[in-house]
């Protein structure tokens, strides 16, 4: 049986088709988020079904997760992104005990049980300072693309000190730093440090190795090093970090589908 997971995040929507028996990803896709979230997700699902040559009626169950999960009206059910990210990361890296997920507009730290279940979690979705949104703001201010930020941070001689606790004020601070002659590279490195220090204060003292980094921000070069330095633990970037939520949703759809089969069987 084939199962689908859809992660309707704040910046992008992701979808995965999974072979429920072999737990093998058959197809996946990603699209920018928009106002008509259900339509976007439906269209993405159609695209990946086509790509994999699979008929919609062969999909046993669809689970939606993410910020916009309740808008995905064609999903069979919804599960929070906390549970789905834990499941997705555990699939890739079964020994993971801590997951740091930094997305476009939120960030979370999950502590996992040895079997991949969630032991505990903390989440920040009220302040942009610990999220990918901060990187978008600095990229816009420096007139570079998000993809350029990693290279810039690597060329930095010294990370600028960004002391503001709020992205709005940090933006003003960045203007001041540029005016005082600070290099854009140092500023980008400083912003990366600022984001990861927010994660550190959110995570508290209870970080257990191995720590896996997931979410779209994990794709930006240098963020893993900044995180590693901030939390003082070695970081493993999850395979396909943007897709772990959708993958977890698809795996959980498979589990729920199997439970259903065993009940009716």
């Amino acid at each position, binding site marked *: 049986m084939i199962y689908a997971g859809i992660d309707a995040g704040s910046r992008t929507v992701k979808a995965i088709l999974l072979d429920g028996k072999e737990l093998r990803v058959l197809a996946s896709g990603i699209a920018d988020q928009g106002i008509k979230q259900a339509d976007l997700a439906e269209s993405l699902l159609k695209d990946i079904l086509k790509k994999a040559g699979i008929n919609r009626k062969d999909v046993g169950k669809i689970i939606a997760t993410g*910020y916009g999960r309740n808008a995905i009206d064609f999903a069979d059910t919804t*599960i*929070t*992104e*906390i*549970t789905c990210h834990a499941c997705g990361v555990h699939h890739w890296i079964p020994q993971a005990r801590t997951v740091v997920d930094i997305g476009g507009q*939120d960030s979370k730290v999950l502590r996992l*049980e040895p*079997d991949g*279940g*969630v*032991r*505990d*979690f*903390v*989440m920040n*979705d*009220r302040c942009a300072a610990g999220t990918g949104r901060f990187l978008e703001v600095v990229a816009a201010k420096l007139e570079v693309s998000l993809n350029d930020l990693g290279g810039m941070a690597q060329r930095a001689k010294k990370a600028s000190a960004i002391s503001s606790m709020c992205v709005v004020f940090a933006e003003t601070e960045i203007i001041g730093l540029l005016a005082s002659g600070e290099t854009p590279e140092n500023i980008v490195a400083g912003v990366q440090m600022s984001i990861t220090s927010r994660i550190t204060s959110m995570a*508290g003292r*209870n970080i257990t190795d191995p720590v896996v980094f997931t979410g779209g921000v994990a794709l930006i070069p240098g963020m893993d090093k900044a995180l590693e330095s901030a939390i003082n633990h070695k970081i493993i970037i999850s395979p396909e970090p943007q897709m772990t939520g959708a993958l977890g949703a698809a795996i959980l759809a498979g589990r729920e589908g199997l439970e259903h089969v065993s009940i009716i069987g």
Partner: protein
Amino acid sequence: MNLAPKKITLTEWDERFIELQSAGINQPKYGGPLRRYLTDGDLRLEKLKFDNSPASLNLWNFLLTEEDRLHASRKEGRKIIGTMKDLGTVPVMAYSLPNVTAFYPDGAWWTPCVMEMSSGVLAVADSLGIDESFCPVRAMLGAFVTKAHFPDPDLIVCSVGATCDDFSAIAQRLNGLGYPILWWEILHRRKPERNEQSVKLPGGFECPVGQVEFVESELQRVKLAIESLAGMKIDDKRLCTGIKTANKVRQYLRELRQLTFTARFCPLPALELLIAEMLAIHFCSDQQESLDVLSGLLEEIRKRISAGVGFFDPDAVRIFWVNPVADLRVMNLLEDCGGRICGTDYLFCHALDEIPLDIHPMNALARMALADPMVGSTGDRAQRICNDIGLFGSEAVIVSRIPGASHCALEGAIIADEVRSKMRLPVLEIEVPPLADSILPSLNTRLTALVETVKERRKK
């Protein structure tokens, strides 16, 4: 008439009220449809879901008519005492006298909980320099200034010392506006040194005998002031009778909590239980009526339990809740997300313990005051929470922070760490502002994730 337990909206209560009236149900003198409070400005009621029992209707009506009772007390010539930053000690003394009504001006923090911003009390507090960096209890200052919620008390009594810093600052501001306050000092509860004689306190704590003696002497000053105002003595006999009545309220609440937390089907929603628990502090300005309201509620839930009916599935996740919320919708949200209340610490759990009757009554009140979770260490509070978790079988804990409340910022992490390490339970920390509209979706995600986490743990 359908009497099955159900959570209903205000509009559904309109219809249900007509049904109850047609059925000839007895209403207390303050009874009536809940809709009338919406017309008076209690806008939040339209967004809540309520228990559909007549007993809960009485509870809501009792709560929402407190201002009327206070104004009636004034007209009757009763002496009115505002007992501030006192979670259940001075009111016991006050209600020992027949011509005194005590109330809890701090309770005005509830005003935005039911009126949202329509009362304007927070804006008044802002204008007096007590802005949102303070606890929402600052609404009390606005309520004093607007005089729209309660009559000016004949006497204001306020504890100070090892209490809430925010509240002390707010009460001092009130004092500065010309309201005389009788301050009494409460000490920070500490463990006795080796050479000090120890006293056991309700709730399982202990402190040096010297602390009890000091607090008792402070309460004696308050007692004298109340006697002088009322023109009669609070003798030991009267005080013991007052303590027995307060203990009856506490007994009812303990049973209500025990039954609600442990029944297979939850017999009472979290919102109504929260309001019922608040009666322990100040009796909603009528001690005898508090007893009647609580006994009605108890009777209803006993009936529900014996009939095997209640709310939610039996597999609803059992949540222990720490601190009251400033937006009441969050209590509804917990249940919408698959949780049920199973243990609470709304900062006054000592007011649910019985006041000792085998010692001198003033000494007993001093011990109660020192058992207040706010005057001891957070570690003590966390320990009591862990004990209750064990007692009620809670599966997860939510620590709800109150924005601006300085104690919340400090306590949350300590309580969470203690619960995680001692009870091995998941803990969720949230913050609930008086208007939580913008964060309800994210609160929904967190509460749902906590419920999912517990359900996953159950499979192991």
